[in-house]
């Protein structure tokens, strides 16, 4: 249209994406709840109505931002739901499938716009939806059943609400009153009335309202009277709903009603807030250092007061930080919610039967992290469904239940969130992986591969266990990207697989980025910060207890031995001469390793600042932090350093083998 609206539109894209996200989530949730119900009984009109609304809204706003494909898809689905609503027809499984495909395509179109990619083709999906739209065949039998179920409720009360500015200031308006009524029963009808003093809303209502409640509501401008007569016929009252005239559909759906209790906040503003708190943390650390210096010069009584105040500020700062972190946390369910569709779709293609179990959906994680984890988790799930499961006959032959299980679970462990994706399929074919890796020219150590080495191969760039044309994984981003994304987010990825029993991917992520507890370590004349979450244990190593096996050092540890990596060697720093070393124990099992430093000098909260220059992004270095005294130190990712060392030294962990033997 080329009349200078581009700028206008671009100013609303965030609003657009956000509103679409909400609608997509709503329809997905509804579609999920419809699985298994379709084709059996009529769907409650209020549910069709809610989906209709979402598509209608998405159509409207997609038109405004000139995303034509999204507009058309939403339009098509809206038409289908309108037809269902008007003809009171049954939503068939084919209809649900078409809607699922439509929602999927719609989302991809929107995401493509957000990421400024060309969108996917939509003609097939559009045709698929158009094909299920019924044409003028009223389903008489069904409509009778529908009438039975939804119109049987008779009103018990007439609830009148007279809005006023005073009530509105107290947060009492037609919406909150509606929400309150809905907690007690069903609103059958809502009619606006004109009074000499203004407007009143009359709700025909069925539900439990005891005397105490009715009494209490009076002061909120709500009066309740027993309904004397049955609800007037729909024709004579103001009919509030377009279409069916079904009384149940009147009133906002709960999801829409509750929207008014939320405030949308731009993530960037929370980042600002977090940065300010970060600055505060640094300032306080600086003050604590100063206080420690002047302690001896201040009389003890006054010192105690200063000290108490300082401690109070520290506590409050921590509370403040946790408060802001909590604002940023969203339930992992946001990712999980779309998985049933992915699994369903792919399982159909691969001929496997897969039951998806979701656990811990309420586990909360930073919004930023979850957004970035969406694709990696999707990729692993896709991979599992396309490759991991045997076809039902194979499973039966192996004595397994015909239906495979894919378990997607999330849980919180201290400052981390653990996400597990586990299947009970055939397990990773280690030999095939090895063969393929060798064929691709990668170096593969001889002998049995441990799971870490296996994962390393799977995640190597360019490695794929199937042909690229394979639809399910071909769409994905590749394990290499999965792994690097997780690492960028200071997380870890682990693999557990057993032939014939299944495979489990474990992703561990920090609850949030930005501020973390860290240990401060010194090597030579350098200082480093090590996030505490990654450290299993801190040990002291006497030089005399160190033994060398070929080029590697080991130390006795809990009845076994532990390989030792010296940071001084990794970074080429000259160690201070000391009788003993401090070391961080990280990892478990065969992966356990002690990373030695000269001294661990303290423990404190640090503010993680990402290294801004991507050119100097170094594996093993998470970012930098300001210790409060103006010194900037690097924050290390010990896991990554250990991996690098293993790679460089080749089989350093072989030294740990005796322990397991």
């Amino acid at each position, binding site marked *: 249209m080329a009349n200078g609206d581009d700028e*206008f539109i671009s100013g*609303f894209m965030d*609003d657009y994406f956000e*509103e679409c996200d909400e609608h997509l989530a709503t329809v997905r949730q509804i579609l999920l709840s419809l699985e298994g119900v379709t084709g059996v009984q009529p769907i409650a009109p209020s549910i069709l109505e809610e989906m209709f609304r979402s598509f209608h809204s998405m159509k409207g706003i997609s038109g405004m931002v000139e995303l034509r494909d999204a507009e058309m898809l939403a339009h098509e689905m809206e038409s289908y739901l309108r037809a269902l609503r008007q003809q009171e027809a049954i939503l068939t499984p084919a209809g649900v499938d078409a809607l699922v495909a439509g929602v999927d395509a719609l989302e991809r179109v929107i995401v493509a716009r957000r990421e400024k990619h060309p969108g996917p083709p939509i003609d097939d999906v559009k045709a698929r939806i158009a094909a299920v739209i019924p044409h003028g065949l009223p389903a008489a039998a069904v409509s009778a059943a529908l009438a039975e179920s939804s119109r049987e409720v008779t009103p018990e009360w007439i609830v009148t609400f007279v809005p006023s500015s005073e009530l509105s200031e107290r947060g009492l308006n*037609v*919406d909150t009153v509606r929400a309150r009524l809905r907690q007690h029963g069903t609103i059958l009808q809502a009619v606006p009335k004109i009074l000499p003093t*203004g407007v009143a*809303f009359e709700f025909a209502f069925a539900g439990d309202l005891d005397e105490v409640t009715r009494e209490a509501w009076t002061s909120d401008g709500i009066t309740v009277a027993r309904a004397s007569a049955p609800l007037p016929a729909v024709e004579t009252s103001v009919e509030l709903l377009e279409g069916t005239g079904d009384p149940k559909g009147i009133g*906002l759906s709960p999801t829409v009603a509750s929207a008014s209790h939320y405030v949308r906040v731009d993530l960037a503003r929370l980042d600002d807030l977090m940065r300010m708190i970060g600055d505060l943390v640094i300032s306080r650390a600086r003050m604590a250092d100063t206080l420690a210096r002047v302690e001896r010069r201040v009389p003890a009584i006054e010192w105690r007061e200063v000290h108490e105040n300082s401690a109070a500020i520290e506590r409050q700062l921590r509370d403040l930080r946790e408060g802001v972190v909590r604002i940023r946390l969203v339930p992992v369910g946001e990712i999980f919610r779309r998985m049933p569709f992915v699994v369903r779709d792919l399982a159909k293609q691969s001929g496997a039967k897969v039951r998806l179990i979701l656990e811990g959906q309420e586990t909360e994680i930073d919004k930023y992290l979850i957004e970035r984890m969406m694709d990696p988790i999707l990729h692993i799930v896709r991979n599992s469904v396309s490759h991991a499961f045997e076809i039902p006959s194979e499973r039966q032959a192996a004595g397994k239940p015909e239906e495979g299980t894919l378990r997607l679970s999330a849980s919180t462990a201290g400052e981390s969130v653990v996400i597990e994706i586990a299947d009970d399929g055939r397990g990773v074919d280690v030999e095939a992986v090895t063969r393929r890796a060798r064929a691709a020219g990668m170096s593969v150590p001889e002998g049995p591969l441990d799971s870490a080495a296996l994962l390393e191969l799977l995640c190597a760039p360019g490695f794929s266990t199937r042909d690229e044309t394979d639809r399910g994984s071909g769409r994905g981003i590749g394990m290499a990207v999965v792994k690097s994304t997780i690492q960028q987010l200071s997380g870890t990825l682990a693999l557990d697989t057993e032939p014939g029993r299944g495979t489990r991917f474990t992703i561990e992520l920090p609850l949030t980025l930005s501020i973390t507890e860290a240990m401060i370590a010194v090597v030579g004349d350098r200082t480093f910060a090590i996030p505490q979450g990654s450290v299993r244990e801190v040990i002291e190593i006497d030089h005399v207890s160190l033994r060398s096996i070929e080029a590697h050092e080991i130390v006795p540890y809990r009845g076994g031995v532990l390989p030792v990596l010296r940071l001084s060697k990794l970074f080429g720093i000259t160690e201070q001469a000391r009788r003993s070393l401090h070391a961080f124990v990280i990892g478990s099992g065969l992966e356990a390793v002690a990373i030695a430093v000269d001294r661990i000098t303290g423990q404190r909260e640090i503010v993680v600042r990402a290294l801004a220059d991507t050119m100097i992004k170094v594996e093993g270095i998470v970012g930098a932090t300001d210790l409060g005294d103006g010194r900037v130190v690097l924050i290390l990712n010990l896991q990554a350093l250990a991996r690098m060392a293993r790679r460089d030294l080749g089989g350093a962990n072989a030294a740990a083998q005796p322990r397991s033997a």
Partner: protein
Amino acid sequence: MQRTLVVDDSPTIRRMVMASLKDVCPGGFAEAGSGLEALEQLALAPFALMILDLNMPDMHGLEVLKFVRSHQKYRDLPVVVLTTRGDATSRGEVVKEGASLYLTKPFVPLALAEQVRSLLNGGARPADDVDRNPHG
């Protein structure tokens, strides 16, 4: 200076409408996300203008319009119906119920502002359009 009431169940559309009309409606804005909310707002404060969507969750915009026009107090309130192109309710119906203007979404911001400006200046032209793509 009285405010303009923007009624639409999409918060994005409401914001777009307000952004488009900010120079035309100097009294500022109030928002309503449903028909009943709109009536409540109307009852609580006087408004200079109402921008009204039709297809809304609880109460159809046409019913809002009927209600408004059937009461003395609101009879003269200019109401601009801004509805999604292709929806069932016809322009004729809307104008018959007393809409001052019938416009469709998607709209061109400048055109919407122009239409509303001339309406407020007394030159109502109910048949005109702000459609981005009138032949579509």
